[in-house]
C-alpha cells in the first residue's frame, strides 16, 4: 500500500495530515505525537510504506 500525504487545515488553526492510499481511500491523521499514523508520517522516509493502521477491507 502506497500513501500520499497532504497537510490540511480542517478548522481554523487545526491541522490534519490527509493520507490517501493507492485505492483513493482518505484518512485524516491528527498532528499528535501520540498517534501512530502521525509517527509513520514523520518517519515515512525510513519505515516500510505499508506501516499503518488500515481500516476494514484495506
Amino acid at each position: 500500500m502506497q500513501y500520499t500525504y497532504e497537510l490540511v487545515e480542517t478548522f481554523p488553526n487545526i491541522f490534519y495530515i490527509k493520507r490517501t492510499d493507492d485505492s483513493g481511500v482518505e484518512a485524516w491523521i491528527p498532528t499528535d505525537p501520540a498517534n501512530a499514523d502521525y509517527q509513520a508520517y514523520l518517519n515515512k522516509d525510513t519505515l516500510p510504506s505499508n506501516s499503518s493502521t488500515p481500516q476494514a477491507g484495506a
Partner: protein
Amino acid sequence: MGVTLNGASPESIFTGAIVGGKNAIINGGMDIWQRGTSFAIAASTAYQYTADRWCSTSTGASEAITVSRQATGDTTNLPNIQYALRYQRNSGQTGTTGLGLYQPLETTNSIPLAGKSVTLSFYARAGANFSATSSLLGVSLSSSTGTDQNPSSAWVGSASVISSNATLTTTWQRFTFTGTIATTATQLYSQFTFTPTSTAGANDYFDITGVQLELGSTATTFSRAGGTLQGELAACQRYYATAIGDTAFYSTLTSYNWEEIYLPVTQRGSATVTSLGVGTNTNVGSASAPAYLGSNCYRYSVTGAGTGQVARNESFSFSAEL
C-alpha cells in the same frame, strides 16, 4: 512477608475466576472484530490490524495471507470460548518468510507487570496442511523501554521474556509459558510466529484463541480483559471505534452547520479518522474532516450547495491504535 488471604497468594485467588483486569491481553478470546471478520492481507505487508488489537504481519514476497474469525466448534477440548482467529497462508503461496500475529500492549497496561513473573497461555490448533517444520508455532513475549510503540515501527531496549515453541496438532490444546519481566520494562508485546515451508496447501493455517497474560506462574481459567463482552468491547474501543455523523439544517448559502460526533468511549489519544461511507448526501456543498475537540468528541462542518434543506449522513472509523 508475602501477602496472603486465607493462606492463598493474591494471584491464586483468581484461579478459575472470570474477572476483568486479570488478563493483560485485550480481545484474547477473539470476540471483537470491529474492522470486519475476514482480511485478505497482501504479501509484503509490514503490519495490519485485523481482529481488534491484533496485528498481522506478512513481510515476505509470495506470501499472501487471510486472517478470519472462526467458531471454535469443539465442545470437548475448548468448551467455553466461542471464537478463534485463523491465520492462514493462502493456498499456492510459495513464500517461506516468518509470519506473525502479535499484540502490542500500551505502556500504561505494561508497567503494572514490570519486575513480575507472568504466565502466557493460549489455545491453538493446526490446519491439516500446517507447513511449519514439526508443526511448531513460535511463542514470544518481549519487553521494551519505549512508550506506546508498535514493534513493527520501533521497539527500543528490547528484551526477551518468553521465547519458545508450541507443537500444534489438529486438535485444540492449551499451551502455557512463564517468564519474568525486567523491572525497567515499560512496554510488552506477545507474538505468535509461523515459518511456513514449501508451497501452501488448502489448509496451511493455525487457529488461536484464549490468549491470556497474567501475573504469577500458573495459567488460570481464561478471562476476557474486560471481564464481560461489553467490557471487552469498551477496552477495544479505547483503540478503535466507529461512529456516525448525521446533520440536517436549512442552508442560506452563507450558513454552515457544525456536527459533533461522540465516540462510545474516550480513546487513548486523538485518532486517525477515515470515512467508511456516505449515506444521505442532499444539497451538500462541502464537508470537512472531523477534528478532535478532546475527551470523546469530534466535530466537522457541512456547508450547503444552495439555498434549501441540507442533509448528510456519514460513518467514520477512529483509530488510536499503537
